[in-house]
């Protein structure tokens, strides 16, 4: 079982020979590193689409009715479709493929010291289904009626009945794409869990596994356990759309609120599915660059399990005002606030890891630290929404929007940049330019906060989400609400900051491009003097990953051990 079946059999040198043919090498590969690259490239391409959508609707919000460059005038139907698909893409086609699939595929075999995934062909199939799902989703924007515009949560009856949503094809393709994407990640998850549990290097006990691997494994388990109800729901929704069944149609005896339960029973654990990998990267990065063991490794691990289990009990906090029995709100308020305990614990533990460290602020370290800082804002603002009474006011306002962007942006964007900048030398063999990296970091982080902090204020002032233009609402066009700015000024400010943030991404791609040149600085196998096994493999790792499969002698975070001169102690070194 554990022997990898590999299509590349002839070279270790990663010169990109065409001897296998383009398709076999790049599209039909079973090598975990190539599949990781496929997921990464597809995820980045989808991020560009999702980011473009954000640019278009933010322009419409700041300058209603204006002709948006590269798009044109935004109609209400297009606006709805843009916000719907921005959300769908960023969660399902960016956060999931990049954080879990790309990094999971690349890192798990390297970090546990084996040569490939346990099921390489299932792995290949996983990417192919994922690619198909992305094509279906992108295709749905161009069919008659346009892309689906019923919000990423797709509440029926709007999503189920084409007379209501007016996107007969778009709505169905949207659900089909999402269902396919789930299948892809179920297949990927099987690999991640099985590989991490069965293919570890000799000597690697459960408590020696690097946090990144643990987190991706737990995320895959959460995904598997939560996605079933939603897949069932998605099929019921497709039937409602195409076969005229009435699972969610009250006129036929169905119940529209049922969908909300199925959706959020998945939707809330899903937050943790994408959060955990980013937390894992952060653990690996902050330990390496503060030269400290991870504070209370076991506590972190138990906290992750606890958070995972609790995350199945909080879903209805998304539905406080949706017409569920109001008494249920008490239970879900309690469970939701309870989850603040393990999450706070996790934040405390990460911060404690920095204590008496020897911190170097490299680019990946900056991203890792920014993850902690920004996620803290996302975490604390969630308390307002998990508490039933205050949620009566906040539900569906821009406060919610700002809150979950303070969780998802640190997860999907900061987490991805943290992982990419940290493991880039391993992926390519070349170091990234630190100056460009820091310019990109500060440009992105500052503009991110300027986009979303004003949106908290707009939410607190009662502005609701998914509204095409606020010109018809006098209460939402107030002057002088913050530092002399009016509400429309805040919208303009957020949009301008978004444009600046998009501009700064050019610096990142420039940096990537520069590292791909021959004369970029060679990384060597272990540029950061880190401990985990991926740093034993050559950079980039060749076929089979390791010259000789390693044996593990200690935990993943033995930095600055008092018995040792060097401030690191790799897992693979005997003494």
């Amino acid at each position, binding site marked *: 079982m554990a022997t990898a079946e590999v299509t590349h059999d002839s070279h270790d040198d990663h010169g990109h020979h065409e001897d296998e043919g383009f398709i076999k090498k790049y599209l039909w590969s079973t090598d975990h590193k190539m599949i990781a690259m496929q997921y990464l490239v597809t995820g980045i391409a989808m991020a560009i689409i999702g980011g473009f959508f954000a640019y278009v609707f933010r322009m419409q919000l700041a300058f209603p009715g204006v002709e948006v460059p590269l798009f044109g005038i935004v109609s*209400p139907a297009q606006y709805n479709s843009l916000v719907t698909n921005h959300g769908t893409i960023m969660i399902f086609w960016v956060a999931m493929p990049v954080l879990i699939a790309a990094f999971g595929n690349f890192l798990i075999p390297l970090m546990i010291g084996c040569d490939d995934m346990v099921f390489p062909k299932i792995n290949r199939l996983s990417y192919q289904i994922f690619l198909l799902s992305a094509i279906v989703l992108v295709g749905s924007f161009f069919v008659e009626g346009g892309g689906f515009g019923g919000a990423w949560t797709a509440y029926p009856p*709007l999503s189920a009945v084409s007379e209501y949503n007016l996107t007969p094809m778009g709505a169905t393709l949207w659900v089909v794409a999402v269902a396919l994407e789930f299948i892809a990640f179920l297949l990927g998850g099987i690999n991640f869990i099985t590989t991490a549990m069965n293919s570890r290097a000799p000597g690697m006990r459960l408590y020696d596994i690097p946090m990144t691997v643990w987190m991706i494994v737990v995320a895959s388990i959460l995904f598997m356990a939560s996605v079933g109800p939603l897949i069932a729901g998605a099929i019921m929704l497709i039937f409602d759309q195409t076969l005229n069944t009435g699972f969610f149609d009250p006129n036929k005896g169905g119940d529209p609120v049922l969908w909300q339960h199925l959706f959020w029973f998945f939707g809330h654990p899903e937050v943790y599915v994408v959060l955990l990998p980013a937390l894992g990267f952060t653990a690996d990065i902050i330990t390496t660059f503060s030269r400290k063991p991870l504070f209370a490794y076991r506590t972190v691990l138990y906290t992750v399990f606890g958070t995972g289990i609790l995350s199945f009990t909080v879903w209805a906090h998304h539905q406080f005002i949706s017409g569920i029995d109001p008494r249920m709100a008490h239970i879900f308020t309690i469970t939701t606030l309870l989850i603040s305990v393990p999450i706070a614990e996790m934040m405390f533990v990460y911060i404690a890891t920095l204590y008496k460290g020897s*911190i*170097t602020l490299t680019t990946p370290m900056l991203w890792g630290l920014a993850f902690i800082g920004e996620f*803290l804002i996302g975490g604390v603002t969630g308390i307002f929404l998990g508490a039933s009474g*205050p949620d*009566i006011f906040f539900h569906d306002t821009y406060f919610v929007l700002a809150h979950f962007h303070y969780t998802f942006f640190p997860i999907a964007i900061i987490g991805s940049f943290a992982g990419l900048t940290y493991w880039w030398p391993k992926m390519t063999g070349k170091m990234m330019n630190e100056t460009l990296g820091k310019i990109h970091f500060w440009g992105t982080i500052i503009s991110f906060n300027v986009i979303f902090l004003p949106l908290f204020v707009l939410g607190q002032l*009662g502005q609701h989400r*998914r509204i095409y233009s606020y010109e018809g*609402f006098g209460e939402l066009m107030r002057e002088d609400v913050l530092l002399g700015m009016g509400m429309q000024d805040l919208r303009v400010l957020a949009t301008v900051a978004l444009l600046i943030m998009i501009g700064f991404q050019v610096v990142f791609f420039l940096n990537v491009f520069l590292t791909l040149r021959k004369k970029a600085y060679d990384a060597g196998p272990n540029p950061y003097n880190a401990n985990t096994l991926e740093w034993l493999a050559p950079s980039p790792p060749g076929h089979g990953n390791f010259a000789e499969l390693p044996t593990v002698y200690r935990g993943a975070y033995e930095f600055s051990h008092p018995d040792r001169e060097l401030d690191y102690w790799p897992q693979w070194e005997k003494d």
Partner: protein
Amino acid sequence: MDWIVQASTFAADVDFAINVIYVLVGFWFFLTFGIFLWLVIAHRAKPGQKAEYLTGDEREPKKFISRAHMLVLVCDVAIVVAAVQVWVQVKQTLPTAPETQTVRIVSQQWAWSFVHPGADGQLDTADDIKTVDELHIELDRPYIYELTSRDVLHDFSVPAFRLKQDSIPGRVITGWFQATVAGIHEIQCAEMCGIGHGLMPGKVVVETPEEHAAWMQSKSGGAMLASASR
């Protein structure tokens, strides 16, 4: 903090629960963020100085974490109490005073229709007053609403009242409010309901008893029956 006008009897209570969270969460946020920044600045690498080997299994440093998270739990309890109290008041209690009136709110793509009782104070009688996109109510009088939808989910949200409730086709959801500030308060639809979702602003017109009586007078005789759809 009152960011927007508190125009209902429970608006101040909702804001109070919100402010409780601002205070507790603000304390934790600034404390944690402050310690975080201080550690990053204080423990920058210095040449020749090794980091301290702390695995976190030592009892002394672990205390800071375990005690802190017990305190978080205490704050959670306070927040739950504040939240539940106001939730019960807004969502689980209905006014019983004899002057309470009932109005019917019907949402549809993309308009609000309202049915007001006429002079007899009863719904479903000949003198009901139907309007579109404008709800007329009396200042300081408790109202029970019966909310339903004709097609998809909508949400009746009046930020000035701190009131929000989804409307569901096939179901009638009741709730209540009592306005305390005369004037016009805006209604936003707070549940995505299709192409016109952003274009269904409504108004709650809060009138003094005299103004309200005059308005009823002007509508009497069934002169204006709202058309069902646009």
